[in-house]
């Protein structure tokens, strides 16, 4: 019987394929909505080093991502908007030169991850053409308009936060806590999901992330 459920966050990250020093992690969430905070704390407790984090923001307050950063586990961040009211931990590490940062336009970030999950190695986008964020990128003209070539983005592990999950790994999301989570779930070697509620069965028309994309899941307190 397929059963992807784990008992707690410590178990779900233990012996997770790809989750090791130097790993890249896709981390869902936008602002404080839909961030897999419990999984991030469990990863922090593994004591890993030299991680790359790919996420829209760079953590705020002392939540999961900030805690992982504070533990010194992360040396590189790929994101669209690291600056926020509470992004103190990241800002200090960045100012100290302890973390490198790659800024990617938000839609290009989402599309590069989508491409990574969809077997598309590269695509063209009009976004950022002629701006500093396209420097060094290959460009090309189609029908008189200029585009930048962007490469797919995948990671060793994706950490996602969902509303409900079932034993097959099918996920639903709550409102805008959906954000990057469904695309990130598709683009990693292992996808770990924390869900607020385990359910016996998810109506098939309502599933946003089919279980095929989810390696393991765990219920966390909402």
């Amino acid at each position: 019987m397929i059963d992807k459920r784990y008992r707690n966050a410590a178990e779900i990250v233990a012996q997770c394929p790809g989750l090791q020093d130097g790993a890249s992690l896709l981390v869902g969430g936008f602002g404080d909505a839909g961030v897999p905070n419990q999984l991030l704390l469990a990863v922090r407790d593994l004591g890993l080093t030299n991680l790359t984090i790919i996420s829209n923001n760079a953590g705020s307050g002392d939540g999961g991502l900030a805690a992982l950063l504070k533990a010194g586990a992360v040396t590189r961040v790929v994101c669209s908007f690291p600056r926020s009211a509470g992004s103190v931990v990241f800002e200090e590490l960045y100012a100290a030169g302890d973390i490198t940062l790659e800024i990617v336009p938000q839609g290009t970030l989402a599309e590069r991850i989508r491409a990574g999950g969809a077997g598309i190695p590269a695509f063209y986008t009009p976004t950022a053409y002629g701006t500093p964020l396209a420097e060094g990128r290959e460009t090309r003209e189609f029908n008189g308009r200029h585009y930048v070539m962007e490469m797919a983005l995948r990671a060793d592990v994706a950490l996602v936060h969902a509303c409900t999950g079932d034993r097959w790994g099918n996920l639903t999301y709550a409102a805008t806590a959906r954000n990057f989570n469904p695309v990130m779930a598709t683009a990693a070697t292992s996808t770990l999901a924390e869900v607020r509620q385990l359910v016996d069965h998810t109506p098939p028309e309502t599933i946003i992330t089919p279980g095929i994309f989810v390696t393991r899941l765990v219920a966390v307190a909402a």
Partner: protein
Amino acid sequence: MITPLSTQDIARRVAADIVEGAYVNLGIGLPMLVADQIPPGREFVLHSENGLLGMGPAPLPAAANPDLINAGKQPVTILPGGSFFHHADSFAMIRGGHIDVSILGAYQIAANGDLANWALPGAKLPAVGGAMDLVAGAKQVWVMLAAHVAKDGQPRVVERCDLPLTGLACVDRIYSDLAVIDVTPEGLLVTDLLAGLTPEALQAKTGATLRFAQNCRVLRAT
């Protein structure tokens, strides 16, 4: 003494130009004010790039749902007819030309429509968010300026931007506290001018050559 438009006046003027049924993305900050100035009886649909169409006003604090936020990470509501979707789908909407109007703030706008609105010199931490995608993808890009010139008196509307660009030749219209200006293939065309302000006075506060529409309208502060 000539009274410039208030930010509410500017927002009201912008809202008046949005047609019934339009799909509109409001940038963080000043553009958000447009949501409160929708003319009675006119329905348009607000898009928030974090995965929401049909964005409604902020809830009462007690009713705030942390899962339901806007691109500025503030609690919002969803109106009847609204929908949720993931980030790749949201930016497919933007990049694919489905958003009728994107309204943004700006540091500089050039006479050819180049826009600089994401990076200031000496900023400690770069951050771009979705601005580059919005200006590349929306059918119309409108810029709102709370003040026609910067605090140090330097014009924001210039011949060429010297700040890092957000997009090339992307701005269609500028709304400031002094004027409404269309970006046309023949250059900047003032369509609305503040009551009591002479064309020469506006030109003196503008770093690029202005033309004035024959039937130039009058803007009045309230």
